[in-house]
């Protein structure tokens, strides 16, 4: 029978102040987790309201103005407050020092500052709900965003501030990975999650400033009438789109790369198998990070940009797809001749492979110039990015949360209920979003409050799916909270994994390790040793 360790980071100091002024990367990771779960809840409720409104054509529960604000907020909250910080800032903060055998990140104070900046940005962004909402879509396309009477400045200022939080985390991680690895832990002995965080951090540091500048220019235009993007003042709206996507396309990889990192861990641990093609996976993350800067124009095939530009962007877009495909095959090959157990984290890992493959393949449709002309700005695009972002990143995030949950809290969740919730989420997700591929290829434009009757059955089906999805998440919330109090102690290494963090207690002490961990094997050497699971 396992017991919790006597002293660990959660009980080392008590009281609200010990959390608000903590410099412990694990506690900061937990603080981020609270923020992110709050954002996911807000974004999720907005999504349900949007889907309910779309159940039938015309007015169901709200007017067009409210609907436009809700889908805008859903997008902005989910992207800037939830998915971008989700894996790096919550799980990355909690795990990175542990995975490299360090006591903390390189700059603990900067780390805490980034959380406060995140909260400040979130307050600005959410204040816009109170001050009249935003109805531009999360992309803030000009000149609409210059003209609309809604609260654009508060929202964009919020996102501008959030950008600094993202940059700080990225900087911190780059330095930590370079300088704080355990003796003997060379780059090729790092867990692939760390490689993924590294590639992500590079994009965060290089691309986020461009978004900051762009949104600042938009604020200048709105507040002081300085013409940059609005043709009425002598600006150019397509310039805005170039600036915006120069950040926002690489940002897609800020969202997905850390998810891929988690999948590498999950597939290897639960297949009890050495990861197939370690270097291919590690370097494909860097390749993706690099090429991701050169594909932004594929969001603009119908914007009036030149045919030559569109052609080059289309070609580069296909290039960035190849490394992602290689990763999928590597994960699959890892399972070959393994000893696969279907614990809940692995179920999410397998759903990632299933859903992300669909998301990736439908991306090929959108990269093909002529087909994109038809599909652009339809529900096909909506379905595609939900398969990549939710089917990919969120599934990986949930897999990671379940995987490291016993490490965070020392306690295990219900295996039965987590499997039930997983099944409901998987079914609900596909009901909601696969339908939208069909809606889109049949011509249903996105961001429509009202629609023609021929689209009604599919919309209704999709809305029902979103309710199924919600049921899954409610069950998940219940058993996870329950496990915090009643869960059985999990032991140091419940899944029998090989990375450093599992050599410490669950939960770990404030310094992460009682004595510095020794590097006796690589992170995936299941061909050499077979560590025992401390939880049946």
């Amino acid at each position: 029978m396992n017991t919790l360790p006597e002293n660990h980071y959660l009980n080392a100091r008590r009281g609200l102040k010990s959390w608000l002024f903590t410099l412990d990367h694990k506690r900061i990771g937990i603080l981020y987790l609270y923020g992110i779960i709050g954002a996911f809840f807000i974004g999720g409720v907005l999504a349900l309201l949007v889907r309910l409104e779309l159940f039938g054509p015309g007015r169901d529960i709200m007017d067009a103005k409210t609907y436009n604000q809700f889908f805008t907020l859903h997008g902005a909250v989910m992207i800037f407050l939830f998915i971008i910080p989700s894996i790096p800032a919550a799980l990355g903060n909690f795990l990175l020092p542990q995975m490299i055998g360090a006591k903390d990140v390189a700059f603990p104070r900067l780390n805490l500052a980034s959380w406060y900046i995140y909260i400040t940005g979130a307050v600005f962004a959410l204040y816009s709900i109170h001050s009249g909402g935003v109805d531009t879509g999360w992309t803030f396309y000009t000149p609409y965003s210059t003209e609309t009477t809604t609260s654009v400045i508060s929202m964009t200022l919020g996102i501008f501030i959030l950008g600094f939080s993202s940059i700080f985390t990225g900087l911190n991680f780059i330095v930590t990975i370079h300088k704080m690895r355990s003796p003997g832990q060379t780059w090729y002995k790092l867990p692939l999650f760390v490689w993924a965080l590294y590639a992500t951090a590079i994009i965060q540091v290089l691309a986020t400033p461009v978004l900051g500048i762009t949104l600042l220019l938009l604020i200048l235009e709105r507040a002081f009438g300085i013409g940059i993007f609005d043709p009425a003042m002598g600006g150019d709206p397509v310039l805005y789109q170039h600036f915006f996507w120069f950040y926002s396309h690489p940002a897609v990889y800020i969202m997905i790369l850390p998810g891929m990192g988690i999948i590498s861990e999950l597939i290897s641990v639960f297949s009890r198998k050495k990861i197939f093609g370690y270097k291919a996976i590690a370097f494909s993350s860097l390749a993706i990070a690099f090429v991701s800067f050169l594909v932004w124009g594929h969001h603009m095939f119908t914007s009036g940009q030149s045919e030559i530009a569109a052609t080059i962007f289309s070609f580069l877009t296909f290039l960035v797809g190849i490394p992602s495909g290689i990763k999928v095959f590597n994960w699959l090959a890892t399972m070959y001749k393994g000893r696969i157990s279907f614990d809940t984290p692995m179920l999410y890992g397998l759903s990632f492979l299933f859903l992300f493959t669909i998301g990736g393949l439908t991306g090929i449709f959108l990269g093909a110039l002529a087909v994109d002309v038809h599909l652009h700005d339809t529900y096909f695009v909506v379905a595609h990015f939900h398969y990549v972002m939710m089917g990919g990143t969120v599934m990986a995030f949930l897999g990671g949360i379940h995987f490291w949950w016993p490490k965070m809290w020392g306690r295990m969740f219900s295996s039965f209920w987590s499997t039930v919730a997983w099944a409901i989420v998987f079914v609900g997700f596909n009901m909601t979003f696969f339908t939208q591929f069909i809606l889109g290829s049949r011509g249903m434009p996105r961001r429509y409050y009202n629609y023609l009757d021929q689209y009604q059955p599919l919309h209704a089906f999709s809305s029902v799916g979103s309710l199924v999805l919600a049921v899954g998440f409610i069950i998940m919330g219940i058993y996870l909270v329950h496990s915090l109090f009643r869960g059985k102690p999990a032991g140091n290494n419940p899944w029998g994994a090989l990375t450093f963090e599992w050599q410490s207690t669950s939960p770990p002490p404030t310094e992460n390790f009682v004595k510095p961990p020794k590097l006796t094997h690589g992170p995936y050497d299941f061909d050499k040793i077979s560590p025992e699971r401390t939880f049946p």
Partner: protein
Amino acid sequence: MDTTGTIFLTPGGSTIAGEVDSLFYFLVYASIAMFGIVLAGLVYFGLRYRRRQTDADTPTSGRAHNLKLELLWSIIPTILVVIVFIWGFRIYIKMHVVPHEAMEVKVTGQKWFWSFDYPQGASTVNELVVPVSKPIKLLMSSKDVIHSFFVPDFRIKMDVLPNRYTITWFEATRTGNFDLFCAEFCGDGHSDMIGKVRVVGEREFSEWLEAGLSGGEGMTPEDFGARLYVSKACNTCHSIDGRSLVGPTFKGAFGTRRVLEDGGEVTIDENYIRESILEPQAKVSAGFQPVMPTYQGLLNSREIDALVVYIKSLK
């Protein structure tokens, strides 16, 4: 709405649609094949190598490389995407090279309707009437924010910008009505910015052009007004059944007094209606946004007269 076609695509209605659809279906089949490989691997490995109670907890195979396999799964997808790239590019270029003999129609997008001006002088709102089997060039611009001209059955889409012209073209292959959507978010009335492309035979088209140039002869002003209410897109924002849309309803409006946004009041009479059509921002009803565009130049005085008669008739 035609319900033939396939589950994924409605039947095409333009010369380019067939080519786009061929590539689309190639992608569907190639994707099903690729997804099938991944799914088969997941299911087979999951069943074949699942952990059994009886398994000894010994180390597993350490093979983490297979050069042939890795080359195979890098090169085959690369070849496939290069094919898709070239294929998509070739059709895209066709979409952008307008045939010389094309008839040019000027398209204007504004919140929240489309207007079409023909070289012969006719103009319409929210209904683009074109002859079948003739290439039509659309020269497009916006009066306010970005819109996007999207006809799903023709598989064409092009953004409509306020500071430059954009061009697209199509050649319809069959007669009938085709939905026209705005595909770029443009505000409260975005999802009502729906028009129609009506494709007719050549004879019918020239008859329509002549009728379009005259307008309203042989109709009562009330009937003519009712037609204009729809054809000039008043119905996008003003209902005739009492519901408030983007703008106030027309039902029972005439003769009543109305509170204005600036606190003043006005009686809705012939002059107020006329003024509100030509200078919509002059006196805005309380509770509504000042978003209506001016119809100066879009309606002649006979048409305004007819609309006034029609609105009066809506008790």
